[in-house]
């Protein structure tokens, strides 16, 4: 065991891509956790998707042994966190398990929105923060400016900021020493009853639920019975261990330490992230504060292309949820798409990733409906109901008003783009809050905006209009009544639920028109004229016609070469795209996918 005074627990936090995982690589290397031969870039990004996309999706904890300049040895428990806003709950959880945070800022970018958001999380959590300016090797690096900005945010001075290059390794020694010197040791009580925080949990097919824990007080020992307080589950500890990052079994985890715990329990719901583990024989009666469950921000219907795959989709979602408790879903039926699920996501990236994992890891072929936020309908009766899908919205007659979720938005932009950002936000129904200058060249703008306006392509727009310089962060605020309507899309007079959407009245026409004309292009001509209409209630706001197919025949003299003709027809038949029947209309599978890609 290591005395708490020789333990340092910290998370590496930053805006996306500022080099957290690469910095973790250097720390692993310098502390000898991994030989240079076994090193690969962003070592802790273990999932295929993380490696392909070059981003961190899941937080990852690892233990390092460090011999300080003083000659004393220390145990570091490092948690690499994701930078993307969709996964900020991973940052919150990780911070709960730590006393310190290494706040990384890219020297060529300076402070960005998630730098601030994550710094505030760490400050609120009472963590000690070591500001680090990274990528000082870059030609475009401006370490002085970045250091001044981050010092400004933290209320410190620029000379407290450590300058490193996670690429070349420059400055890493300074950082390691600062971790020892500046970060506090854990403060738990060694002889108190066991209290350990479950800060992450995932499902392993062979071993069941694997939980990452941080021992706050007391200690936990292999084979002893423990209790998960929230679920009142008593089980024996089957296995304890740490990751270096290779797993290593140990017999005991003591106050201040971080490690993993396996109990043989297979039901993930019994071992919740945020729960407190205690001793069965000498339990504590004071659970740790725990976490708030992350709230899904966007919802989308996921339907198997092949109706027979519904059960497989259910199983896949169940399994995925074992490793991603932020995933929520419930069965949904669509007239156009059949049986599927309405799934809640933390954001569009999360949605994309979940979908990709379902398709790849579970070999499913899916159609996703247009994402929607969670609205609330106030009924004429005075009752309020949740609206997670446009189908949930009652008819106008029964409806008094619709409320939509608003978010607090923070945008950091170079001063020259302030006007541009303001215009963009205004088009998206944003209301300006305060504006402060991080430095003469960079401003921090605050807004209140409907969530629906930012989850879709706002970020891309912001990036392209500011040449990539602005960054964005948002957090849920409250609900507010808005003038919202449901736009229905009718194919041959039949509403196609998969295409309907809830939008602000002012954007209804634009959405309807764009969807109608896109569908007209995507849907092949049928045996009869097919009107494609957009409607609000019974009022048609846009209409186009897919003209009936008139000629599909070889009207040429081809004599007796019937074999060749039949083979040609057979090939054409094979090549025919997968179709879904919507009413009397054959809609190719890709039409759903392509139509729903609509960026408005």
């Amino acid at each position, binding site marked *: 065991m290591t005395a708490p005074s020789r333990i340092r627990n910290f998370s590496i936090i930053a805006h996306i891509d500022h080099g957290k995982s690469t910095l973790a690589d250097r720390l692993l290397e310098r502390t000898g956790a991994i030989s240079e031969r076994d090193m690969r870039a962003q070592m802790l990004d273990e999932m295929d998707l993380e490696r392909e996309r070059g981003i961190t999706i899941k937080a990852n904890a690892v233990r390092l042994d460090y011999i300080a300049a003083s000659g004393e040895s220390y145990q570091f428990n490092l948690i690499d966190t994701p930078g993307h806003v969709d996964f900020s709950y991973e940052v919150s959880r990780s911070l709960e398990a730590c006393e310190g945070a290494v706040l990384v800022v890219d020297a060529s970018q300076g402070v960005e929105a998630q730098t601030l958001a994550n710094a505030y999380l760490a400050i609120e959590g009472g963590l000690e923060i070591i500001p680090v300016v990274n990528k000082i090797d870059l030609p475009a690096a401006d370490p002085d400016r970045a250091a001044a900005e981050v010092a400004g945010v933290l209320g410190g001075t620029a000379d407290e900021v450590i300058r490193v290059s996670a690429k070349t390794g420059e400055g890493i020694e300074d950082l390691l020493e600062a971790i020892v010197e500046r970060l506090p040791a854990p403060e738990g009580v060694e002889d108190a009853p066991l209290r350990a925080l479950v800060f992450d949990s995932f499902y392993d097919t062979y071993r069941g639920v694997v939980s990452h824990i941080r021992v706050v007080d007391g200690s936990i020992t292999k084979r002893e019975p423990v209790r998960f307080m929230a679920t009142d589950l008593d089980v024996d500890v089957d296995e304890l261990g740490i990751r270096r990052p290779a797993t290593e079994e140990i017999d005991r985890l003591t106050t201040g330490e971080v490690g993993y715990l396996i109990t043989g329990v297979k039901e993930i719901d019994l071992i919740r992230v945020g729960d407190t583990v205690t001793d069965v024989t000498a339990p504590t009666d004071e659970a740790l504060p725990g976490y708030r469950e992350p709230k899904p921000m966007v919802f989308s219907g996921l339907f198997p292309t092949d109706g027979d795959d519904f059960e497989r989709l259910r199983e896949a979602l169940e399994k995925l949820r074992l490793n991603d408790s932020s995933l929520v879903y419930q069965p949904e039926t669509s007239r156009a798409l059949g049986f599927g699920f309405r799934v809640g996501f933390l954001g569009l990236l999360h949605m994309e990733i979940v979908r990709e994992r379902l398709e790849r890891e579970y070999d499913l072929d899916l159609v996703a409906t247009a994402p929607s936020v969670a609205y609330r309908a106030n009924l004429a009766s005075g009752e309020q109901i949740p609206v997670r899908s446009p189908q949930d919205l009652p008819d106008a007659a029964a409806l008094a008003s619709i409320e939509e979720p608003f978010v607090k938005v923070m945008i950091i932009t170079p001063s020259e783009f302030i006007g541009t950002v303001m215009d963009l936000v205004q088009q998206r129904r944003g209301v300006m809050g305060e504006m402060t200058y991080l430095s003469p060249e960079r401003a921090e703008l605050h807004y209140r905006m409907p969530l629906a306006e930012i989850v879709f392509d706002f970020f891309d727009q912001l990036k392209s209009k500011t040449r990539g310089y602005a960054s964005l962060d948002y957090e849920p605020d409250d609900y507010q009544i808005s003038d919202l309507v449901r736009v229905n899309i009718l194919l041959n007079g039949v509403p196609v639920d998969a295409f309907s959407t809830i939008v602000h009245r002012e954007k209804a026409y634009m959405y309807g028109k764009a969807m109608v004309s896109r569908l007209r292009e995507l849907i092949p001509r049928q045996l009869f004229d097919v009107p494609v209409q957009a409607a609000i209630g019974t009022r048609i706001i846009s209409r186009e016609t897919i003209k009936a197919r*008139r000629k*599909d025949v070889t*009207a040429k003299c081809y004599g007796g070469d019937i074999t060749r003709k039949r083979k040609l027809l057979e090939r054409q038949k094979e090549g025919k795209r997968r179709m879904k029947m919507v009413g009397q209309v054959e809609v190719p599978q890709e039409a759903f996918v392509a139509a729903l890609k609509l960026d408005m």
Partner: protein
Amino acid sequence: MTDRPVSPDSVALAAQASSWRSAYVHVPFCARRCPYCDFAVVAAGEPGAEETGRYVDALIGEIGLESGPFPIEAVNFGGGTPTRLDPHDLERILIALRDRFGLASDAEVSIEANPEDWSPRYAAALREAGFNRVSFGVQSFDPEVLAYLGRRHSPDQAERAVTVARSAGFDTINIDLIYGAPVETDPSWASTVDRALTLGPEHLSAYALTVEGGTELSRSVRDGAPAPDGDVQADRWESLAAAASSIGLVRYEISNWATPGHACRYNLSTWAMGEFVAFGTGAHDHRDGTRARNVRRLDAYVERVERGERPRSGSEHLDGFERKRERFMVGLRLAAGVEAGSVGTAFLESAEGRRLLDARVIESIDGRVRVGRPLLTDLVARSVLSVSEEDC
């Protein structure tokens, strides 16, 4: 020919046609290759183009390799351009066919002719040799369209050719038209139709210009030249159909019209699954349930026949269910439709079949299935190909 004029689209005629046997003779020679053409053709100047005598000998040799008797109701000389051959050569071939297989006394004996090759003397010689039907590759009466199609004759030449054939005493005169060339306009098509019908042909074939792979046309389309438009072609077909029926021409197949008693037997029997023998480069036959084809190359064809070999390049034998399905699928091209049988019944009961019925693309009457919107026949045929043996 039949004694009493029978309507070209009658069910009885279609039923009869399935038992007719016919013969096809391919003559590949042409003055030059038209840009849209993908038939087995040897244009002047290409190897073998001058050796027509040797080719005719090979044809006769090939006829000798096919077993007879196989009493024939219809003979069709197609091409290429059969009228580039000497009437005497054509007659030699006809005699070989008659000797080998037997020819009905009232057999239809037809030849494709290009208007520019036609003369009273030539017409008379063909009559003499035994031809009673001629089919002219007129294509259009619009000089601009003819130029686009790379044709060598003028509209007037086409008219004269028909008149000459008429005086020579051919029983049936056919005019081939091609519609929907991108340079063609509505008025130009209207006048082509008008001039063609004014000539009073007993038979009319109108084909939608088709861009075939490997042709000069397909290369220019690929390089950005306009392609024929399917909707325009549908318009053209409809306007022709209306005009033709107003003067008593009856459509009996997607692209073929005739006055009563003048439906092309060779054509009808092809779609009614009749059997036929075929000779020449690229020719394909249908006999004893087997479809076989010849090599397309002139040199290979001649050499193999001269060695006493069948110049085959491939064959296919269809049995049982597949044959029934083919019969049904092919028969859909006929205006008389096709007997439903087990395949048709299964098809009508399938989801696809019901959809097509609902949309009136197909009709089911008296145990027969007809395509009500003939220009969608391939669409129907593809659905028929989804019918499997288990469905029946």
